């Protein structure tokens, strides 16, 4: 199976985050690491390959520093890597990111001579993490499926081959799961914690240096999908301790709740 796994570099979990004074983002003086669910997507991809052969391509879109997570993926066993290099000041939303990744996959297919015109660039499986630890949109994988014209399933806990396709287990709310079969190629967004992550071995780290890591400047992809989201301001939540307890019969509580929401201008048109 030919698998591409999309990885994002995010601020390290333990990094003390600080918004920029103008609220346009966070300060860059923090450590970065591979987004946690993406690490599980990579693990799943490597296990698929070990079980059934094929190729694992690690892909990221991000500034120059994001190459570090691709080297990590190569050290753990990915065969090659694609880095869509964005300018440092670029802030792509999920739609623009998905458009760029889709373009890169199609371009990869034509350059590697795979079935031209195939939607997913000749990949059988496209994996992403469920969501990113920094923005948390959980949209990139879904939008990417739309761009590639492929079926998708989200919050995947388990994957098994079934006929010419896959049987996957999705996590729903409240301890429920859904099991479904899907055809290939497909896009799956992977949940954290579904396997134990492997360590890169020293041999893996050494060999990773000789594996191909292609850097493609974003502008070379010729995608001009504009962001459809705009971040107004990033700020630390204000601590306000104003809990109001509403007691009484439900209809009364509902009415008073509405009043409070209106008074706080939290309803549209209020």
């Amino acid at each position, binding site marked *: 199976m030919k698998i591409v796994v999309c990885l994002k570099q995010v601020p390290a979990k*333990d990094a003390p985050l600080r918004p920029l004074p103008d609220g346009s983002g966070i300060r860059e*003086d923090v*450590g970065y690491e591979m987004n946690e669910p993406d690490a599980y997507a990579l693990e799943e991809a490597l296990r698929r390959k070990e079980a059934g052969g094929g190729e694992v391509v690690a892909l990221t879109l991000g500034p120059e520093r994001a190459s570090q997570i691709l080297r990590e993926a190569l050290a753990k066993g990915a065969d090659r890597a694609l880095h869509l290099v964005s300018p440092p000041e670029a802030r792509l939303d999920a739609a623009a990111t998905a458009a760029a990744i889709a373009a890169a996959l199609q371009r990869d297919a034509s350059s590697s001579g795979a079935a031209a015109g195939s939607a997913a660039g000749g990949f059988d499986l496209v994996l992403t993490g469920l969501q990113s630890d920094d923005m948390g949109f959980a949209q990139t994988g879904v939008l990417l499926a739309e761009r590639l014209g492929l079926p998708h399933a989200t919050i995947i806990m388990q994957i098994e081959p079934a006929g010419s396709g896959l049987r996957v287990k999705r996590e729903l709310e409240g301890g429920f799961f859904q099991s479904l079969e899907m055809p290939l190629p497909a896009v799956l967004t992977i949940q954290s914690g579904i396997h134990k992550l*492997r360590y890169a*071995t020293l*041999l893996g*780290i*050494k060999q990773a240096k000789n594996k191909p890591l292609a850097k493609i400047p974003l502008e070379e992809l010729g995608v001009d999908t504009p962001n459809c989201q705009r971040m107004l301001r990033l700020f630390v939540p204000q601590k306000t301790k104003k809990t109001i307890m509403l007691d009484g019969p439900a209809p009364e509580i509902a009415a008073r709740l509405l009043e409070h929401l209106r008074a706080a201008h939290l309803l549209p048109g209020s």
Partner: protein
Amino acid sequence: MQHPEMQADIVIVGAGPAGLACALRLAELYDRHNREHPDRPLQKENILVLEKGREPGAHLLSGAVMDPAAWRRLVPDFEQSQELAFTPVADDAVFALTARRAWPLPLTPPPLRNHDNFVISVNRLGQWLAARAEAAGVTIFPATAAVEPLWHRDQPQKMRGVRTGDKGLDRDGKQKSNFEPGYDLLAPVTVLAEGSRGSLTRQLLETLKLASVNPPLYSLGVKEIWELPAGRFPAGRVWHTLGWPLPPSQYGGGWIYGLPGNRVSIGLVTALEYADPRTDPHAYFQRFKTHPRVRALLQGGELRRYGAKTIPIGGWDSMPPLAGQGWMIAGDGAGLLNSQRLKGIHLALESGRLAAEAAYQAIALSEPRRLLEYAEAVRSGVIGRELYAVRNFHQGFERGLLAGLAHAGLQMLTRGRGLRRRYPAVAGHLRMRPLAEMPAAPPAPFQPDGKLTFDKLADLYYSGTRHEENQPPHLQVRDPGICTFRCSHEYGNPCQFFCPAAVYELIGEGGERRLQLHPSNCVHCKTCDFMDPYGIITWVPPEGGGGPNYEGM
């Protein structure tokens, strides 16, 4: 257990200034060699560097004011390293502190004069050197701890490499499903560049029964980075302080260095050689910030980073043998630090560079004995000259600050000799006195306010420390019974005070009191490895990748 083997030309343990300087210089020597001897090329990928931090630089913490001489020798295109934002020292001052006042010394003593030096971040310096070494073709293994030296079976004095730590062991030492055994990295040359109190360095000295003239001596440096309102403390300003809050008998002092971006590096060094087992270097540092002068400076600012690390201060007479069969020791691990100037980065860089020269001779000419030339080059070269001249400085403070300053003056007149050729020294943990000999009332515990001053756990959050929780404990207490039944009465468990990361906690009441360890808090400062009065704590490297994340420190 089977350990996979990997052959190399050289294994360098530790990606600090010493280890990285060694790797980078050796890569250059390989390039030159390959130009001159294309018939027998050397492979730069066989230069291996191991780093236990998650990335090179993650465990590097320093002040830091750097003497640039060694850096210039290592990186001749000095200008290129300007992206590192080295800040030239603009002005410097030394203050003697009392609880209320700060008296500027009329003249900055020559060792603390810092013109032509640079205020830097050693974390950034490490990241930069590592990237450069990797680009040159060196192999760096991040998140990889060396855990023991390996010796030739038939020549037990000859090192044949190191073993790296297993990964994926649980609390009880059982293999988890993602277990990976450590590697045996085999090479004719091993360089131990582990920094202060290296674990392999300690094992090596024990195995070969080698020792320095004086025992090794250490200080603990506790540091924070603050961001201040613009214009409060210019980048490149360098302040040192003496006195308060340290009692006159306590060796140490404070620093405040101006960094770019309205930030300051602020910290306090406390020598780990005191009588009172309740001494708490972290609390001293917190008190330091409440000095009116310092408080005014930090007012309205915000804490950004925290960390702590030991500093070898024994100097010339605490230097162990530096080389032997198949091994060399460089940097802080060999005690190469000028405690009078609180500077070791330049000596680490220089020793790493010298180790590379010797390693090249040993590797390219297959002449292992050339490693001994390294020891000679350090002792008789610029490093040795600098350390020999201040050999008695620290020991002169044996009887406290005033006597120390008198000795220091005398030593300056006698080119380092002072009253004696060698001032004796006593290992820090042997100086600790039982509680019974201490004033009955314990010092009032420090009450942090959460704005200017912090407790250890609050500070720890700013160190970015993280470990795999389910792993064998990396703080090995040989006999926990001693902690509960002897130490608690005799010394009151000093580990809970000297540890700057709240690893050691006493829980329970009265007869039920016992010591609880929180190894995940550990910032790898190594204090407990030598400072407990019974010598029963051994610090071993935890699973590679664990530890602090000293971004910008």
